[in-house]
């Protein structure tokens, strides 16, 4: 009985460690029709470090990280490219945010990586 509990605990710990070690990628916002100022955000996490927006056509957009204390923007990037990415190498708790600065029809996906 004791040995089987030990095996279970060891497996749980191993699973937890492998989950922490593996990189996570989350698509947090997708749309194909944008109005100016429209956007979306990921959940908060201390492990996010890379924010990406991928668009089917070029339009003026912004990606950034927002911390959960002052709600300041960090490593913000504004540009027209069909693929934009920014990195914030900080252990602070943060969420990724993407937004359009103009109205646009473009199949778009915003993703965050850990």
């Amino acid at each position, binding site marked *: 009985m004791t040995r089987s509990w030990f095996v279970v605990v060891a497996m749980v710990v191993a699973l937890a460690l492998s989950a922490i070690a593996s990189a996570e990628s989350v698509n947090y916002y997708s749309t194909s029709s944008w109005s100016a100022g429209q956007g979306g955000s990921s959940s908060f996490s201390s492990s996010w470090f890379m924010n990406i927006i991928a668009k089917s056509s070029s339009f003026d957009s912004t990606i950034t990280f927002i911390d959960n204390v002052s709600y300041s923007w960090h490593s913000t990037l504004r540009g*027209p490219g069909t693929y934009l990415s920014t*990195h914030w190498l900080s252990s602070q708790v943060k969420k990724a945010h993407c937004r359009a600065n103009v109205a646009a029809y473009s199949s778009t996906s915003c993703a965050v990586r850990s």
Partner: protein
Amino acid sequence: MPRVRKRMVVVLALALAGSLLVGSVVAAQRGGNPPDAAKVEAAIAAARMTRVADVAGGEGFARRGVFIQELDTGDLCVWDAASASSPDRQGGCNSIDEPLGGSAVSANLAYDGGPAIENVRDARLSGLASSSAASVVVLMSDGSERTLRLKPLHLDAGDFAAFGFRFKKSDLRSGIGPIAVIARAAGGKELGRQATGIGG
């Protein structure tokens, strides 16, 4: 009965063809699918970084570089980075067939702090312009202009000019920020303009 069934088949076929046509028109309007981010990331990790311009240091900040990458996905990327190997980078990509996105200038604005401009600690501009541009300036919110130093850039995709620029802290603290990047011909004629700016 067979005639009714035949009509139903024809009606269904027409409805299907119609919906496919409408779907393809909508997809074409929206430019198809976005690039596969994982594929682009893999290509970025494999491609060589070439420094094409500088972002000045000073006021407590280290000098940075403007780098380009030609990806095997057919994209051209422009990065503002601490060094060629640094993960501390911001930038983006466009199709190598149209690296300026159909304009005479394509610029990325990177900044830290804000979104209120007075709270921005550092703001930088990096990008490319058409080789026909004699000058590229940043139009500021007070109406003044900042002239960017252009570096000639020869690629298989054509000739361009690369630029990097760091905004002065005194401008940002005073609430003065960029609102547009303008490419001009030798005679002063405007070739292209890209809106930009800090915050929402």
